[in-house]
């Protein structure tokens, strides 16, 4: 199995203007900070970011909001990042708010070859505007379409060189599902293992989904 270890400089070079990028994490818990550094260093502009939230000031996706690299955010919650709200109200950031469970299913659909999720969530609210409603077995559901990305940036606790990864504690969040739904997947790991060192029962992302791997530092952002 091929090693996916990639130099930081190569990763920086691969990030382009206008990309749609998924970033794992929940309030920056499980967010790859070194890969966020790489996005900043790339200077890529006009990005669309897909993530559960926009982090907290100084950590996670928040750092990309601060550098004005992001044109659009698709997310469920930005309440702990006042800068995102300011920019959205000022009209300098296109903020698309999506219910958290819907966001997860939209990403899963793109990754699983499914045409969309039929969910009761958001019926009767602004979320339902302009969307198809489908009745099944006497209940009404919203059709939420698949959500795919050019790039997914993920953070694991442990990965082997092939990219098989395990996420600890509450860092699993969006990392596991996003690995299926992007053309290119880059994983930042806390701990780098040799192939064969992860128990096959505990692998949560298969290396077949991972294109590039880099060891991050355990950091205190």
């Amino acid at each position, binding site marked *: 199995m091929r090693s996916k270890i990639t130099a930081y400089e190569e990763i920086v070079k691969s990030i382009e203007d206008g990309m749609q990028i998924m970033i794992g994490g*929940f*309030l920056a*818990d499980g967010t790859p900070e070194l890969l966020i550094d790489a996005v900043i260093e790339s200077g890529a502009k006009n990005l669309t970011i897909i993530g*559960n*939230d926009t982090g*907290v000031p100084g950590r996670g996706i928040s750092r990309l909001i601060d550098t004005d690299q992001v044109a659009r955010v698709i*997310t*469920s*919650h*930005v*309440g*702990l990042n006042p800068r995102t*709200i300011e920019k*959205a*109200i000022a009209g300098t950031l296109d*903020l698309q*708010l999506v*219910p*958290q*469970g*819907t966001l*997860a*299913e939209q990403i*899963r659909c793109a990754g699983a070859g499914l045409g969309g999720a039929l*969910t*009761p*969530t*958001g*019926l*009767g*609210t*602004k*979320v339902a505007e302009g969307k198809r409603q489908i009745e099944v077995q006497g209940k009404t559901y919203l059709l939420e379409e698949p959500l795919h990305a050019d790039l997914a940036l993920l953070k694991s*606790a442990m990965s082997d060189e092939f990219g098989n990864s395990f*996420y*600890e*504690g*509450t*860092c*699993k*969040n*969006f*990392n*596991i*599902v996003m690995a299926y739904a992007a053309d290119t997947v880059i994983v930042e790991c806390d701990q780098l293992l040799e192939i064969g060192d992860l128990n096959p029962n505990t692998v*949560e992302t298969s290396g077949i989904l991972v294109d590039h791997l880099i060891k991050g530092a355990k950091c205190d952002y």
Partner: protein
Amino acid sequence: MTINIPIKDIIAKKAAAELFDGAVVNLGIGLPELVANYIPEDVEVILQSENGILGMGPHVTDPAVDHNCFNAGGKCVSLKPGSMLFDTTTSFMFIRGGHVDIAILGALQVDQTGSLASHEIPGKFIPGMGGAMDLAAGAKKLIVATSHTQKGQPKLLEKITFPATAINCVDTIVTELCVIDIVDGRFVVREMSADISKKELEELTAAPLMFNL
């Protein structure tokens, strides 16, 4: 002698009394989080956190403990024995699939049809709905825990005016003044503070009340 207990804690304590032994419970960020401090001793609930925990324990202040476990508000938490950690798709299978018995959410407004507004004041307050819409749609029972009024203005209305977080979903409203069940599109007061009269409660509520005390 009266002791000045913060209103939030009065609400949290009353909401905690609505829980039953063995219930799987999701507590929203903010006021509902306080409910965990008032769960009766003879009641054991299993706390779900939408970012990936079943069996969440109390906050821990030492970040070295369970370093990788946080709650949905970003606070470091412990895990109880018998807990499970999982990703977001699994989390919302639990929530949307009806496997959470009770969700307790805060409110900006709530109305007699059971519609809830909790996530947006247009142009002013746009934190996003997070998991609230899924919780409202999926939890078996939805309890709203909120102050009865906001700066003197009623939060319990005939019809919400802020954008809906969910429609026809709320089962029970707990405020510092009363506990209200929503029955057939009406507010039915089940419990009331001894410090207030029916008339005073009606004046602080912008919808008709029925009393079943």
